[in-house]
């Protein structure tokens, strides 16, 4: 049981850490594939814009 709980905690920590790393490295698609002139001001709460 301890190994199982430790595994869940480890997975959660690594996932949270990678979310921080990816969010600092990657851009949302509405930013990555367009210039400033073509960007949507507020893409809203969706899968391609900021959450």
């Amino acid at each position: 049981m301890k190994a199982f709980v430790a595994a869940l905690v480890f997975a959660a920590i690594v996932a949270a850490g990678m979310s921080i790393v990816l969010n600092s490295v990657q851009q949302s698609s509405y930013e990555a594939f367009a210039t400033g002139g073509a960007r949507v001001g507020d893409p809203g709460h969706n899968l391609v814009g900021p959450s």
Partner: protein
Amino acid sequence: MASFARLIRLTIGAWAFLLLVIALPAPSVAQQVNPTASSVKEQQLLQELNRIQGRVSIPDQRSGVLVQPAGRDWREFRNVTLRWIGGIAILGMLAVLVIFYLSRGMVRLESGRSGRSIVRFPAFERFVHWVTAACFIVLAISGLNITFGRPLLLPLIGFEAFSEWSQWAKYAHIYLSFPFTIGVVVIFLIWIAGNIPNRVDVDWLKRGGGIVGHDHPPAYRFNAGQKAIYWIVIIGGTAVAVSGYLLMFPFYLSGIEGMQWAQIVHSIVAVLFVAAMLAHIYIGTIGMEGAFEAMGSGTVDVNWAKEHHSLWVEEEQAKARAASDGATRPVAAE
């Protein structure tokens, strides 16, 4: 005299003509130029039908292609073919397991419990197993949502709930892929020594592995069935990880076609992976008495170990004897 001179001129002319013929290089096949070699073929034209492409002023010129024929082929695979492959693989495996359980039932511990236990998997190995397993379950559910969520789940829970669930599932799918990949790599390293196929595996397979019938063929720490699962995890895990990271970092290493291929590989391997893991979960839980304890507490009953891994038990007992002999051996006085 005149006829002699004519003969001389004729001879010189003949030689000159002969030299000219020899000196001129014969036109080779390689040097022939096909003026239509680079022209557009009829098949290429047909493949480009209905392509919608224009010019864009933004840096990403790929966005100028609005519709491409290869994209329609990929969409057909994703929306139709993949659902058939996944449905048949996963539902087929579930059906086989249900039929097998109803006909064979749980593989019982025939010699009963001895009351003595032996360490099967130490804490670190169970930790790595559960990291990989927990991540795999979330990745499988969130991945299946991408393929089957829209036709199956959306009509049940509506657009709002499906959108919210899919967004969180997508986050979980991306971020948990990293601990999953770490788990696959560590599993490869810690269990590779015990998972190299050998002659014992051939005998184990010939005798049905103790699953079919009530035979108990000998096996070392991992039997042939467990070795098969190990290599499915290593090869399948590597395939989904590599193809998944290609999709996670679009256009870093490949273009649109490469990403379509990555998605095809990722999705097919993933649904087959899920089907295989259903069988693994079955035999590790309700399929075999005492099997879950190996990954639950880490210890198994000695009789269970003797029935399913008799050669491994002999190895462990020999190690224990050697250790106790070393501990009790008298030390020479100095």
